[in-house]
């Protein structure tokens, strides 16, 4: 009985000691934190007021801060040389999954360079309308059926034009299907075959979207131009003359015949 009481007393003492230690630790942490804040304020000249994260107007009710200070993602394309070296070493070590990933990264790196060159070659003004720099977009996935895409748009209050150049993309299939089967184009009111700068293409019209011209550029590339609020077919086709289709095709290394 005495032994049991003794054990109980020891356990109680241990609990008290642990509790004391926890509280002591909490107090110590608070002191440390306060000291750190004081030191930071002394260095950076901040005042004692606690900093409140900015809250957007629309989110005031919840009090949850909106993201408005983060820097975003790094958009530097993968290093081609390094990716190829990684692929070689991974392949030698029979790490095929890693080798494949590294090769895909190398392809993305190369495609981004190709895309940026095509982007640079696109005109800054079309039909008197300046391009919207923030909308410029080069996308590559390193995967065959998605491929490389380059997008630029031009618009003012009245008219809008955009061009998408796709390389190694499934977007090519539908246009080629139309071109290979004239019945598709002749049987539909809003779609027809046209020739632009010596390239065969497909011109579509819809009341809502305006004109859309799809021109396959060789085996694996296509340029798709959309023109909104142009008076008629000839005005829309004239817009497409602003884009050097043969030059784009050459830059993408595609053969036409």
């Amino acid at each position: 009985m005495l032994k049991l009481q003794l054990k109980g007393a020891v356990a109680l003492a241990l609990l008290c000691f642990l509790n004391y230690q926890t509280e002591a630790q909490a107090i110590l942490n608070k002191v440390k934190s306060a000291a750190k804040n004081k030191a930071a304020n002394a260095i950076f000249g901040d005042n004692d007021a606690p900093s409140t994260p900015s809250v957007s107007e629309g989110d005031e009710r919840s009090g949850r801060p909106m993201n408005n200070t983060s820097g975003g993602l790094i958009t530097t394309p993968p290093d081609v040389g390094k990716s190829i070296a990684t692929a070689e070493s991974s392949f030698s070590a029979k790490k095929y999954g890693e080798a494949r990933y590294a090769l895909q990264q190398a392809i993305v790196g190369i495609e981004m360079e190709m895309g940026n060159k095509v982007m640079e070659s696109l005109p800054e003004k079309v039909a008197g309308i300046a391009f919207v720099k923030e909308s410029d977009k080069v996308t590559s996935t390193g995967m065959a059926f998605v491929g490389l895409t380059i997008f630029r748009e031009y618009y003012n209050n009245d008219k809008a034009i955009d061009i998408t150049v796709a390389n190694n993309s499934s977007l090519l299939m539908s246009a080629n299907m139309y071109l290979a089967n004239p019945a598709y184009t002749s049987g539909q009111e809003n779609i027809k075959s046209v020739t632009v700068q010596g390239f065969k293409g497909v011109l579509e019209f819809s009341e809502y979207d305006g004109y859309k011209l799809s021109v396959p550029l060789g085996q694996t590339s296509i340029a798709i131009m959309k023109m909104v609020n142009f008076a008629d077919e000839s005005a829309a086709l004239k817009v497409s003359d602003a884009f050097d289709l043969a030059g784009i095709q050459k830059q993408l290394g595609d053969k036409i015949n």
Partner: protein
Amino acid sequence: MKKIYILALIVTVFGLTASAQNDFTASTATAMNEYKAGNLEEARFALQQSLAEVDKEIGKEILEILPKSIAGFSFVEANDNVSGNSSSFGGLFVHRDYGDTTKSVAIDLMDNSPMLAGINSLLAMPMIMNSSDGSQKVVKVSGYKALLQRKDATQAVGGYTLQIPFNQSLFTVDFDGAFTESEVTSAANAMPISEVAKLTY
């Protein structure tokens, strides 16, 4: 005589391995040279060739781990097929056949498959996928959701197709002949799906 056969086999295996290594090394070297010369399209083409070589090696490893027999049927070695497609639709493709003319099983693995999006969206809606006529339903195979379809819904016993998406791959097992659903699911559960998924990741 036996020693000669073994020696020939070793030479063949090493020869093939060396050939794959050589093809890979040659195409990556070409890619690097073309890239340095500013010929971006040529560099990309060479890298796609390298990618196809890597895919072929992955495919060979997958064939190694696939079962030698399914539902009592041995595999048909002559029909084993691996291809690494450097462009267009589908990167890696692996095929293996089992059985004979009356009952057969075929495994197809398609990696980087554009068909994957369709299957995945269907699997996300099991209420829609479980059809009332019993022709298709969502099942689990080795922990993976899969779409099981009966080829002829009017028959209690018949062919089945099982489609299992994972990573960027679509693993399809086609059961042709008088198979029951339990035979199909137990055969599928005996397959090393998780290991295949690891190899294609």
